[in-house]
């Protein structure tokens, strides 16, 4: 095990704590916090900031009866919520996104596979499986791409990313991440826009594979 060296930036932790991150990013940040005590502390510090706001806003009078309603409901039976625990290399939030099922891998060619967890107009989250030594096609993105390593490691022009490391790719980053030798690299990646590939063939394949 090596220490996590690439963390969630503070502004993302603040937005995550406040609940203003798009769902796909929130999933990656929740997964990173599940692995990283430093970022969990940063996130919980922002909850304290939110708590301070809660304590200092102008209170509003509560309707008569709300309190007794709530007290009456304390013993009402509730359906237990499923608790999704870490399974294999996948942290709890990823297992929750998979609804407890194993990933459904689809081949992208060259041994690269993906499993889409969510995709809509606000962005997409997916698991990527990259065989050792394999390069993911050179691509850049329209918006922010967050990539969290769950198994193995990859390297690109900006450095090496091991288990628990989070890479923040913005639109200026044109990169061809390559899985390092050793174990296959499994990542959780989220974008707020479809990836753009620089070479023609992957670009033609893009609508097919939704990458």
């Amino acid at each position, binding site marked *: *095990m090596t220490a996590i060296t690439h963390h969630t930036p*503070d*502004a*993302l932790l*603040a*937005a995550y*704590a*406040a*609940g*203003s*991150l798009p*769902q796909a990013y*929130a*999933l990656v*940040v*929740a*997964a990173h*916090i*599940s*692995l990283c*005590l*430093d970022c*969990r*502390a*940063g996130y*919980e*510090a*922002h*909850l*304290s*900031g*939110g*708590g*301070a*706001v*809660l*304590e*200092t*806003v*102008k*209170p*509003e*009078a*509560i*309707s008569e009866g*709300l*309190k007794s*309603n*709530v*007290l009456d*409901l*304390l013993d009402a039976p509730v359906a237990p919520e499923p608790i999704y*625990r*870490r399974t294999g290399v996948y*942290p*709890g*939030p990823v297992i*929750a*996104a998979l609804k407890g099922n194993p990933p459904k891998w689809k081949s992208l060619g060259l041994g690269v596979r993906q499993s889409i967890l969510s995709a809509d107009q606000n962005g997409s989250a997916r698991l990527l499986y990259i065989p050792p030594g394999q390069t993911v096609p050179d691509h850049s993105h329209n918006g922010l791409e967050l990539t969290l390593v769950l198994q193995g490691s990859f390297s690109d022009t900006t450095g090496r990313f091991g288990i*628990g490391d989070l890479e923040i790719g913005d639109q200026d980053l044109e990169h061809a991440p390559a899985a390092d030798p050793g174990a296959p690299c499994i990542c959780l990646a989220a974008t707020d826009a479809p990836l753009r590939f620089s070479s023609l063939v992957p670009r033609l394949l893009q609508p097919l594979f939704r990458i």
Partner: protein
Amino acid sequence: MITRPDTALDDRPSVTGPSVTGPRKDNTLVTTPPPPPQVSTPTTQVSPQTTWMLAVRDSRDRAAFAALFDHFAPRLKGFIMRSGTGSGQAEEIVQEVMLTVWRKAAQFDPTRAQVSSWVYQIARNRQIDVIRKENRPMPEELAEDLAGASGAEPDASQILAVEQESSQLKQALSRLKPDQREIIERAYLGELSHQEISTQTGLPLGTIKSRIRLGLDRLRHELKELR
């Protein structure tokens, strides 16, 4: 295990409190610069809110829950209505939040969070679930296994220190200029995107983060199994 110098505790008698600026009301902006450090009353007891919350968590104490309701329900309603939610729907959310406080009390860990932080998180989750109709992804919970796995007694000085840092954060917020404070409120109300939130939110979070980190260190062995 705490290995760092425990300054927040050692220096408690000399920590600057709000009383040196004279009588204060909530929501009153202090326009004078922060005073130099002076002696104020040291915190030696946990706040009523934490005491109530622990009674709810450990003894399912209904009177303590009623006291928590009286404290938080009007604040929650004000907080939720700040974002433009109507009174009726705000009260529905308040009801759900307070019921969640009761049902999930076992997850409350006073060595990492003041009650207000914990309630804030529940409130934001509830608001988001209502708006998006889907659950916000949450980090894997660490607190559940606390008693069983570590067997460690909660550290009272750590609880007090978290409370003290939280109350200083609240004071820092009320000392800010109105426009600065407005930005922070909007950020934590979820009205700003991550692009709009600069890394400098203006709130001094460094100390409380270090303090929470000490609380998390007690759970470190659990993470070792995970990674």
